């Protein structure tokens, strides 16, 4: 199983070709526009303090930064999992999340949000459903797809991710890496136009990280737009078309990976990069 996955994915481990070759698309509207995002937990803890990000179609944006800097919160807000105090987000030109202020609930257009898929750090598979059922639950219940059609697509995806033999297994029978690959396949079942990855390898044993990163690289090879929060700087360098350094609830530095990871302009970024790479060596 693992062998076939590696064979299939082996060639994607090289850095992925530039996604911005398609100039007509990059000139178009931003795919994601995050404007002036403010978010606090109570009066004391302000996580986002006016965060702005724009993402062009086809980009692979990697968000790095210290813990508590607002990276994961950004993705969670984009998925409609968190209320916000101020700001708005639009996707593909359609505004879909906006703060209404005064403690009122954040407005979310769920139809637009469904075009975005997300994979979390852990505990994401439903333990009472087998792998195939995990994959087809949302397509059948949310989109009303027939069980047969959804199962066929699911089998195809699982085969592609080297998990063909695991369709009838339960999540408890899978390794952490396999679980995360299933979680990615499950999100892809809804044909998202953007994928969010929130520290998807942070909870894994080191030897299982590669197989999950390979699957994400494979998606990158197919030009899937993605926003990735990660602490793995090597992965960030390999997959990013652009890197954003977030700290203190704002974007501190934003640029190509060679700049932000290699020769950061901002002092704050340099300190962080030095520390992270120092720890890893």
């Amino acid at each position, binding site marked *: 199983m693992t062998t076939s996955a590696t064979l299939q994915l082996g060639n994607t481990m090289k850095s992925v070709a530039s996604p911005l070759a398609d100039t007509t698309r990059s000139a178009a509207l931003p795919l994601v526009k995050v404007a002036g995002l403010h978010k606090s937990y109570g009066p004391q803890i302000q996580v986002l303090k006016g965060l702005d990000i724009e993402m062009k179609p086809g980009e692979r944006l990697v968000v790095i930064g210290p813990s508590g800097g607002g990276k994961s919160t950004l993705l969670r807000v984009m998925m409609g999992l968190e209320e916000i105090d101020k700001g708005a987000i639009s996707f593909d030109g359609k505004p879909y999340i906006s703060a209404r202020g005064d403690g009122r609930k954040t407005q979310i257009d769920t139809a637009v949000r469904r075009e975005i898929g997300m994979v979390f750090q852990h505990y*994401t598979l439903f333990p009472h459903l087998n792998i195939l059922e995990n994959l087809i639950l949302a397509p059948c219940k*949310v989109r009303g797809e027939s069980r047969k059609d959804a199962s066929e697509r699911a089998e195809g995806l699982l085969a592609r991710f080297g998990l063909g033999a695991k369709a009838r297994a339960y999540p408890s029978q899978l390794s952490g890496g396999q679980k995360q690959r299933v979680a990615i396949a499950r999100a892809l079942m809804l044909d998202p136009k953007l994928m969010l990855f929130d520290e998807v390898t942070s909870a894994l044993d080191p030897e299982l990280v590669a197989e999950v990163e390979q699957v994400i690289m494979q998606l990158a090879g197919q030009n899937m737009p993605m926003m990735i929060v990660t602490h793995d700087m090597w992965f960030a360098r390999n997959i990013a078309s652009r890197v954003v350094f977030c700290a203190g609830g704002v974007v501190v530095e934003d640029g190509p990976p060679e700049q932000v990871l290699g020769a950061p302009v901002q002092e704050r970024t340099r300190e962080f990069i030095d520390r992270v790479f120092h720890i890893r060596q």
Partner: protein
Amino acid sequence: MDYTFDFHAIGQNMGPLIDGLVMTIQLTIAANLVGVTLGFVIALLALSRWAAVRTPVMLFVEFFRCTPAIVQIIWIFYCVPILFDVYFDSLTMGVIALGLNLAAFNAEAYRAAIQTVPREQLDAGIALGLSPIQRIAYIVLPVAVRASVPVLITNGIGSFQQSALVALVGVQDLMYAGKFLATETYRPIETFTVIALIYLAVSFPVSQLVEYLERRRGAASH
């Protein structure tokens, strides 16, 4: 110990004991039907985001958890008819008293089980576009109900034993039959030994089943 056991009189009077056991089992099953279903509704209400719903439900649960069952049974038998002007036969009253008590304990079992479903799974449900009702139906309930089964069965055994209390208010259950037999035969020691063995014979296999279920669950979660 120089007491000589003589089970002769008990052996000749097993009929009333069997009848009592049948009554006890019926009472237990009926109380569990109330406890399992009403307990579930109570658990959902107790998790409501509205305090106006949550508070009275929590008071109900705490009342039954923090007062002796025997007091609840006697209170329901004697006070309810007077205060609310409703009269039921003693068996129905027994089912109500034991059922409400069990519902309160089962509600806590369900509530704990619902809260074991990790927040991340609900987040994943939102990310997959499931509606709030779909998230409860497809993510929370199947896991929570399975997780609560061992506790529900344990509470069920408890209610089987607790049902002996309703003999005090005239329900002709196993305990009632035993008390009657003990005075009839002047053999209280033998009678209550046999009664205890009958309760044990029914409860023990069920408690073994719970242990088996918990072992299996423990193995499955690794």
